[in-house]
């Protein structure tokens, strides 16, 4: 197992004091550093626990990602700018014709996400299969049983390490059959609380004397010559091997960059059964580079759904600030209730009408707004509730710009691909990410109440309906019979008269 730990110190923070970093013979000590931390583990296939082997050996490529949907604050994010809608995202490419049954039973066992068959639970994007669960707490629920499984019941130290992932801002697992390795990437925006102000006080030691741990404490390396590049400078060391910290300055093209623009979203009220998510962007007056488009990536879970035909209406979409809907994939049945659905929902990739906005920016100087029209499915009845809470994660909003250095992106030691939306852009693309701004909420999501039928009076509803139908029926039936009798009587009377 290879391990690499990076502390990314914001340039606004004071330079780390000399005694903040201390490299000893077999450990590296860090004190009082405010930083984003990334841990990267690389495991070969043979190092994996059996149940993980079972899952990955059915896949050509597997990406399992989690994002906790919390703020990064206004920290400098360097190469860690890309985020995802909160919750779990799985992208899986089956190995040959595999049904990936082990992946399916894995997620239903550990993540409690119903999965009888991949085809029933995942949406299809060509050969690719995608699943999303909008649950920010899912990680803590998954980790406990997983820690037991991986470590065995008695090894507390091992379990603590696994459970520490609980506080991660984001977690990526990536396996591909070509390299036969599993990469685990964990990012913490702040320390998980062993210091008061979110700064890191840690001692890093290799697990075994033969393990190597690479540690870097890096900050912004300053301006780069190219727009697409990020430069980092700081100190590096391999614990257990190096005797002293090595100064470092690295520059590399990065697929993901942060943009100093924030956005917020909420439903327009009242929401009704056709809610609209309104997103407000503090965009400023210009695009980051020539030829960029501004995009929003939505993962729309049940009970929400989009009407693809409505989204095709370009005039309507323009009025909502959307230039065109590039992609709608997944479950878009327009009529079925949630209980008839087996898939999680649909994804939507929208290209925003930024040209229109920028052309009036000088005059108006107002924030940009766009709206996604949604609809709600009927949800199951309940004896104690009048409504169910439905939660929609905010979209990710980003600029996609034509890249010149695209073929060198993989030299980036922090590169991130297959996020769910980047596959829809040409390879020659790099991204500027906007930051969700959370006000009065802890997660980047919005909720609303879906009215449901309260079933406490179910007996009354049943008998009442029956009663009404019977009364109506008998009334009509009675008048029909009455008419027959009367006309029969009349006929008889006429008959008698004639006689």
């Amino acid at each position, binding site marked *: 197992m290879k391990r690499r730990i990076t502390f990314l110190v914001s340039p606004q923070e004071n330079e780390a004091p000399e005694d903040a970093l201390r490299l000893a013979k077999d450990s590296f000590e860090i004190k009082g550093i405010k930083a984003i931390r990334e841990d990267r583990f690389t495991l070969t296939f043979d190092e994996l626990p059996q149940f993980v082997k079972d899952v990955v050996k059915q896949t050509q490529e597997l990406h399992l990602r989690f994002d906790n949907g919390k703020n990064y604050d206004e920290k400098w994010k360097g190469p860690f700018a890309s985020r995802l809608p909160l919750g779990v995202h799985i992208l899986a490419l089956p190995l040959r014709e595999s049904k990936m049954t082990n992946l399916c039973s894995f997620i239903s066992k550990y993540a409690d996400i119903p999965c009888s068959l991949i085809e029933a639970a995942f949406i299809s994007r060509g050969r690719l299969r995608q699943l999303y669960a909008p649950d920010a707490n899912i990680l803590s629920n998954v980790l406990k049983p997983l820690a037991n499984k991986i470590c065995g019941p008695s090894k507390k130290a091992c379990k603590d390490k696994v459970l520490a992932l609980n506080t991660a801002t984001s977690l990526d697992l990536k396996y591909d059959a070509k390299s036969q390795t599993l990469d685990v990437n964990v990012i913490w925006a702040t320390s998980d609380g062993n210091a008061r102000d979110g700064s890191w006080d840690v001692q890093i030691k290799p697990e075994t004397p033969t393990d190597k741990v690479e540690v870097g404490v890096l900050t912004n390396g300053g301006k780069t010559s190219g727009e697409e590049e990020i430069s980092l400078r700081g100190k590096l060391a391999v614990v257990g091997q190096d005797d002293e910290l090595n100064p470092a300055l690295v520059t590399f093209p990065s697929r993901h960059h942060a943009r100093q623009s924030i956005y917020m979203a909420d439903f327009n009220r*009242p*929401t*009704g*059964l*056709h809610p609209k998510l309104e997103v407000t962007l503090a965009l400023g007056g210009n695009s980051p580079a020539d030829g960029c488009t501004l995009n929003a990536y939505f993962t729309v879970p049940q009970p929400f759904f989009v009407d693809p*035909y409505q989204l095709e209406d370009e*005039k*309507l979409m323009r*009025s909502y600030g959307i230039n065109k809907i590039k992609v709608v994939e997944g479950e*878009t*049945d*327009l*009529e*079925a*209730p949630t*209980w*008839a659905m087996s898939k999680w929902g649909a994804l939507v990739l929208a290209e925003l009408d930024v040209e229109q906005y920028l052309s009036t920016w000088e005059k108006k100087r107002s924030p940009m707004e766009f709206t996604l029209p949604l609809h709600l499915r*009927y949800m*199951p*009845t*309940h*004896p*104690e509730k*009048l*409504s169910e809470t439905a939660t929609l994660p905010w979209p990710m909003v980003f600029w996609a710009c034509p890249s010149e250095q695209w073929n060198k992106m993989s030299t980036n030691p922090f590169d991130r691909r297959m996020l769910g939306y980047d596959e829809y852009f040409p390879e020659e693309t790099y991204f500027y990410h906007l930051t969700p701004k959370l006000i009065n909420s802890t997660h980047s999501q919005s909720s*609303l*109440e*879906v*009215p*449901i*039928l*309260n*079933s*406490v*009076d*179910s*007996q009354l*509803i*049943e*008998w*009442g*309906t*029956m009663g*009404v*139908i019977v*009364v*109506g*029926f008998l*009334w*009509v*039936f*009675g*008048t*029909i019979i*009455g*008419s*027959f009798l*009367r*006309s029969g009587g009349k006929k008889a009377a006429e008959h008698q008269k004639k006689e």
Partner: protein
Amino acid sequence: MAQISVASLLVLSSLLRLVFLLYGLYQDATSVFKYTDIDYLVFTDAARYVSNSSSPYLRATYRYTPLLSWLLLPTTFEPQFFWFSFGKLLFAAGDILAGYLIIQVLQIYGFTATRAMKYASLWLLNPMVATISTRGSSEGLLGVIVVALLWSVEKRRVVLSGAILGFAVHFKIYPFIYAPSILLWMQPPNQPDLISKIKGFITKDRLVFSITALTTFMALNVGMYAIYGHPFIVHTFLHHLTRLDHRHNFSPYNTLLYLKSSPFTPDPFYPAVNLSNLTIERLAFLPQLLISSVLLPLFAQNDLPSTMFAQTFAFVTFNKVVTSQYFMWYLVLLPFYLGRSRLMTKPLMGIAALVLWVVTQGLWLGQAYQLEFEGENTFWPGLWAAAAGFFLVNCWILGVVVGDIGGTRALESASGTRPEKATLSR
């Protein structure tokens, strides 16, 4: 009404629809609130699939006969700004033709031209009818088919009548309820009592009518199945038999259907109380079909068009799903009934019926608006009670209709003239 000719009434109705159509184009071009009906987009999308030689059923929610998408093929022609509205023109033309036929049929029943025009105006100059067809809803086409059926039956065109009925049932299933009425109406005059009626039930006309209707219906189905295969059967017919229909609509069954189709969570205070095994929703077709296609046809000999009106009214009222477009189905037959109705001779009763029909419908719409657009939970009891109230009002009106058509032998009481039916053997 001032004395105007049939032609000028038709021109006036056409102008009305043209104004609505143009207004709709204007609203669609300028507002995000579309005048055009969502279903029209479904039809025209389906037509586009057909124009690319693929199946109209590739369009989600296309639940109609392929004939409709064929009819609308011109909507795919260039230039689009003109041809796209072709379907609306077609539906509006269908309206006008239906109106013209209403006038013709009313005159067969001895109405003077002026009086026929007055009643036909209920359809021709009705803004609701004009709106529905110019928004691009196909219900108006059904109107013309049904009135054409009535016309051809009254004109003794037996083969044509059978063909129209077969076509109509292929187009929208529900006109099958007219089959028993028309069969009973084809009563030979020389059978005075019930026994001779039963003995001599099978007549040449009845046979020819049944065979042509069945042949037309099946030929269309077989033809469409040959072209489009299983999806044709699924979307045109099976869908209507198996649909869940849990979403709110005017039907008195709709709250119950939601309750029964949803997974049930027991009440923690009364965990033993479960949903009953009462399955009235599965038996809903019983009262509906008993009234609309068994009992009411027995009045057909008294007055065929009014009977057909009553049948349609009953079919819609007792249906498991009711939307306002279904009201068009009986509205087209209303002019035939209204002329002889107590709702006209007793104005108070007529006004009460109209007011109650409108008010209970309005109450339901209010509850539905609060649910759909304000997110307020009006499922129970508001929406349920409004639907129940509307249903009961409809039943009361149906009772009045039944009293009218069952109480007298024919149209004479209202119009004062013997109906043409007396000259049956022409």
